[in-house]
């Protein structure tokens, strides 16, 4: 039995102070949110992305026309045509409608590979960094091989060999991004692994799994997450690029990269209509990039 004593005056004082600190200091995320709120660029980019997301999610409700229904008599109308605000494409389909619907696939293909790569890459990277030794060698030397390819080339190579299709494109992009996330995850984990609190946890008998779950993940997920958000922009550009090359999405499915490709022939007829899908990719990609920068600053992640 431990001797339950009445707290001394000093102990009571400490307890009161601790409670005050707890009440006053806000959580980590509240601090991050406060810093984000003070950053106009991040707020603007975040709002644009949110609006776009809403627009493409509710595309069936706001789109004025059918995305697949064309007409030979109204092909390649200019921007500002009544009823067809942003003009029509080479098959007479409404551009605005197709941009709204096209965003769904473009966003999906830009985000899905990064999310999958985030999960797989973090797992492998944390294992490599935490276990070390041969496991580290095996995982890191394998990533070195994929690093030996320029990312666009690797994506084109894999999806070119597998053939066109959304699934193949996502698979190729995931394989491109996994090694990049592994590298970041491994290096942050290495940094955390030798800190005192990990040693303390190990000394108190915690298993490796518990240490990773309780002590390591909380410290490495932030930096990896920030890095992953910065990959979304790249992923969207490459994904649309694959569709632009005829890999990825297949016609008549609306997708920004593919629309850009099919409208390329119309460049001498309706040049400004033809470049619209690319403008959408550009805006989305730059917003994701700036958002990632803002998050990095707000979460105080170095690098």
């Amino acid at each position: 039995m431990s001797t339950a004593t009445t707290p001394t005056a000093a102990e009571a004082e400490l307890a009161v102070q601790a409670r005050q600190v707890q009440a006053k200091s806000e959580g980590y995320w509240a601090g991050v949110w406060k810093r984000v709120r003070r950053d106009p660029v991040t707020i603007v980019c975040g709002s644009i992305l949110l609006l776009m997301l809403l627009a493409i999610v509710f595309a069936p409700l706001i789109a004025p026309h059918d995305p697949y229904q064309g007409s030979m008599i109204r092909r390649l109308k200019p921007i500002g045509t009544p009823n067809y605000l942003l003009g029509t494409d080479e098959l007479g389909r409404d551009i605005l409608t197709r941009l709204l619907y096209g965003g769904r696939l473009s966003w999906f293909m830009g985000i899905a590979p990064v999310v999958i790569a985030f999960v797989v890459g973090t797992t492998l990277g944390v294992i490599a960094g935490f276990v070390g030794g041969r496991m580290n060698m095996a995982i890191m030397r394998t990533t070195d091989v994929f690093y030996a390819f320029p990312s666009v080339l690797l994506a084109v190579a894999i999806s070119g060999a597998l053939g066109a299709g959304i699934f193949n494109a996502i698979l190729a992009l995931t394989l491109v991004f996994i090694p990049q996330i592994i590298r970041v995850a491994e290096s942050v984990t290495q940094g955390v692994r030798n800190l005192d609190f990990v040693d303390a946890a190990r000394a108190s008998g915690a298993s490796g799994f518990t240490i990773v779950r309780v002590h390591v993940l909380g410290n490495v997920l932030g930096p990896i997450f920030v890095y992953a958000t910065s990959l979304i922009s790249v992923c969207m550009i490459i994904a649309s690029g694959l569709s632009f090359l005829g890999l990825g999405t297949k016609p008549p499915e609306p997708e920004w990269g593919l629309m850009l490709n099919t409208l390329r022939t119309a460049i001498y007829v309706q040049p400004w209509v033809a470049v619209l899908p690319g403008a959408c990719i550009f805006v989305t990609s730059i917003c994701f990039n700036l958002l990632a920068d803002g998050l990095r600053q707000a979460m105080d992640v170095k690098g």
Partner: protein
Amino acid sequence: MLLYLLRRVFYAVPIALAVGFVCFMLVQIAPGDPINAIVPPDAPADVVDQVRRDYGLDKPLLVQFGLWLSKVAVGDLGRSLATGRPVWADLHSAIGNTLMLAFAASSLGFVLGCVLGGLAGTFRGSVLDRTAVGVAVAGVSVPHYWLGMVMVVIFSVQLNWLPAMGAGPGGSSDWGWDWDHVKHLVLPTVTLSVIPMGIVTRTVRGIVAEIMNQEFVVALRGKGLTRWGVFLHVVKNAAPNALAVMGLQLGYLMGGSILVETVFSWPGTGLLLNSAIFQRDLPVLQGTILVLAMFFVALNLCVDLVQTALDPRIKRG
């Protein structure tokens, strides 16, 4: 130094082998039996078996890889399924054109990036700095194939100043040093240069800002060195890292130019890859990827060696 060099080259060998293996696997992961890529679909079964044995396709995967590697090592990349010509014959002129474009674009990007990044790093927090950072973010976020189209719309369609496609007059694919050829190079080069421009700007800005904060710069100023003198010191400190970034960018552009080459019908490896994908010409796809990836491995090695040679702060451990 020689020992270090040898060791670095030695380390690159397993990477090169593994890259070769990935390229070899590209044909294996392709849907369908690779034999269908060689014999016509209506060939009798015994002929198919004969060809399968001749090509070693009945042997285990690793043996096949060895066979393939021994052919590749002597420059035999197989034959194109579409044209029947050796892959290397089409590839080597394409590589010249791609190198030309990638080199021009990364040089332009490097110069612009150094100027922008240097100014931004020196005058940190100024309007100039914010503009440079904005340009850099735009440069890395822009889908360059789209930028190429916009360039064509402005400079070819609307203004009619520059040609929209090809590498020379009359669709010629051989390079020549005259105005007609240079005119064809302008738009693809500018389009492709925005990526290295953005990345070099970011890097140089960071390096310069860091150097400017160091004490030796204050000491140099304190001893009365002119602005130009301080500038030279900063350049000397920033150069190794900036050059390393630039070297890697050249490699990325070799691979990444596929999209821009498609937009401008530039007769390089990108266009070759594009038509190979379109016709499902796997030997061409495999050969092109292999050569580009090997180039990238070699370039990585060179960048490492040059950086070590230039920068005494890196230990040759």
